[in-house]
């Protein structure tokens, strides 16, 4: 099948937009995983809660930008509470208990959302400032998607600067490679981890907020993004941020072009990619740990 060039360009942009969104969610997940070996299934609930909070704030205040501020704050706080009062109890009980706890939270948050907001899909309008289209490659393209792209690039840049150029970034990176040693050198690792957990939750919520106007807000959104994030983590390598970025973009493009070429198999492609990576390099593209 062949399409005009501009279709390819538009699909490729779609792919980058979704990939960046995915990266915002996956980055928190992979950092937490790298530091403490906790695969946090509830992370996807934070993304979902972000979107639902955005809905409520936007409906009550009529201001999308306010929700972009409030929702991550709420969810970040929730993340901190979860880590401090629930997850921390399970570290000494082993990986199974950690997984089961985050799984239970995923379950409970999903139900809470269903009780509070109902099971009908919701949507919020694109903010006035960013409504409409701009000409792009001879066609038009929604401004809002460019905003997602720009905003997530901005966050990525901020994250990279923080991790590479600040003292706290150095601590986080070294805790990813050997948390015990960092603790022995006098850093309060539990506090750092608490911060990373909260920050990761807030990032997931931001992704949820900015996704809300262009994907709809529905109950399965957590599970959907969770599966994509898992593929990202496996493909990119456990605990690797550059890996997560590359893998997110790959998944974004794969889905975007998959829908263009073979719509029926679009869901399957990412799993094939995952299987191939697992055969060739079981640690993922950028992974070093097992």
């Amino acid at each position: 099948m062949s399409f005009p060039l501009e279709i390819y360009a538009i699909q490729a942009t779609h792919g980058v937009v979704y990939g960046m969104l995915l990266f915002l969610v996956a980055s928190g997940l992979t950092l937490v995983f790298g530091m403490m070996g906790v695969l946090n299934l509830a992370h996807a609930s934070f993304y979902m809660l972000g979107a639902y909070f955005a809905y409520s704030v936007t409906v009550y205040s009529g201001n999308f930008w306010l929700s972009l501020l409030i929702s991550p704050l709420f969810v970040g706080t929730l993340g901190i509470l979860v880590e401090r009062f629930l997850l921390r109890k399970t570290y000494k009980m082993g990986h199974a208990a950690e997984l089961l706890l985050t799984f239970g939270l995923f379950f409970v948050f999903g139900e809470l959302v269903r009780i509070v907001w109902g099971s009908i899909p919701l949507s919020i309008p694109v903010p006035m400032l960013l409504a409409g289209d701009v000409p792009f490659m001879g066609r038009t393209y929604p401004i809002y998607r460019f905003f997602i792209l720009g905003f997530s690039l901005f966050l990525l840049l901020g994250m990279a600067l923080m991790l590479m150029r600040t003292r706290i970034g150095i601590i986080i990176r070294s805790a990813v490679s050997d948390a015990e040693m960092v603790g022995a050198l006098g850093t309060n690792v539990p506090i750092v981890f608490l911060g990373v957990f909260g920050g990761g939750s807030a990032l997931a919520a931001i992704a949820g907020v900015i996704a809300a106007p262009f994907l709809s807000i529905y109950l399965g959104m957590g599970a959907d993004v969770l599966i994509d994030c898992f593929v990202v983590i496996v493909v990119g390598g456990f605990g690797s941020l550059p890996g997560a970025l590359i893998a997110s973009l790959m998944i974004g493009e794969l889905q975007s072009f998959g829908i263009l070429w073979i719509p029926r198999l679009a869901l399957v492609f990412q799993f094939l990619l995952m299987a191939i990576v697992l055969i060739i390099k079981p640690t993922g593209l950028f992974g070093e740990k097992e």
Partner: protein
Amino acid sequence: MSRLRVYQLGSGVAVTVFSLLIPVIFPQIGIHLAIEVLIYALFAISFNILFGYCGMLPFGHAAFFGVGGYTFALIFRHFPGTPLLLGFVAAALLALLIGVFIGFFCVRLSGPYFSLISIASQMFLFAVALKWRSVTSGDDGMTFARPALHLPMLGEISMRNVVNIYYFTLMVVAVAILACYLFLKTPLGNSFVCIREQEKKASFLGYNVYLVKLAAFLASSILAGLAGGLFAFFSAFVGTSFIDLNMSMSVVVMTVIGGMAYFLGPVLGTIFYIVFQDWMSSLTNYWMIVLGITFIVIVLYAEGGLISLFKNEKVRLWVSRLNK
């Protein structure tokens, strides 16, 4: 005979008699619930071979349940004359085959990595079931005529009657659970626990850890496939709900609530889950959240699950005092 032996024998006889009498005691909706309990109990036991015995936590165990269900449904949709038992054999065998493929990837991984690949492979199969409409009918699912059982001496036994379905399911599940119990008592079954406790030590002792884990994975796939086949048989329907995330999640919940440390823990968890669901869902819409919170509390404060209440020394002492 020691007192414990008498106690065990007595409770065994009691359970057998009770399960045989269920159609008499609960003639209406109770039979349906009992059939569900039987099938999910088998599914949960298959899950617990991996989780309780091997220490591997498969979050996507519905993959095999679904494969079994779809295999059974497809066979009787397209070849209605197939002998009933052959359908279950095929369901279990296809689940085994899929288990070989998935096991090849994920058995060598440990901890969260294993869980992650397990859930991903389930979602892959879910996507196939959803999108391969020409075979699976996608999210509409498929109905088929429930086949009758042909026995050499007794002739045809119709399966239109729910009591017959109950006794048939009871028989199949009892045989499967017994087989599973005996299998776990073999040296191979013991080596599962050995690897769970001390993987490195086991490999130094000469166990091929990879192969032993794969054996557990395959045994678990076979039983899950059989359970899926039974559920398709019971509902005369198969759909994506057989293979979706909810199915995988409920088996985790059942097993953990019941208690993963004991062979019969998952069975108790299944009974609790099904009865609780039936009872609470008539009272309130929020029963799932009560269940979820129960689950979290059990994970945090009662690792042994509900069954550990029976095994608990204090509780046992209390019960024995009551008996005096």
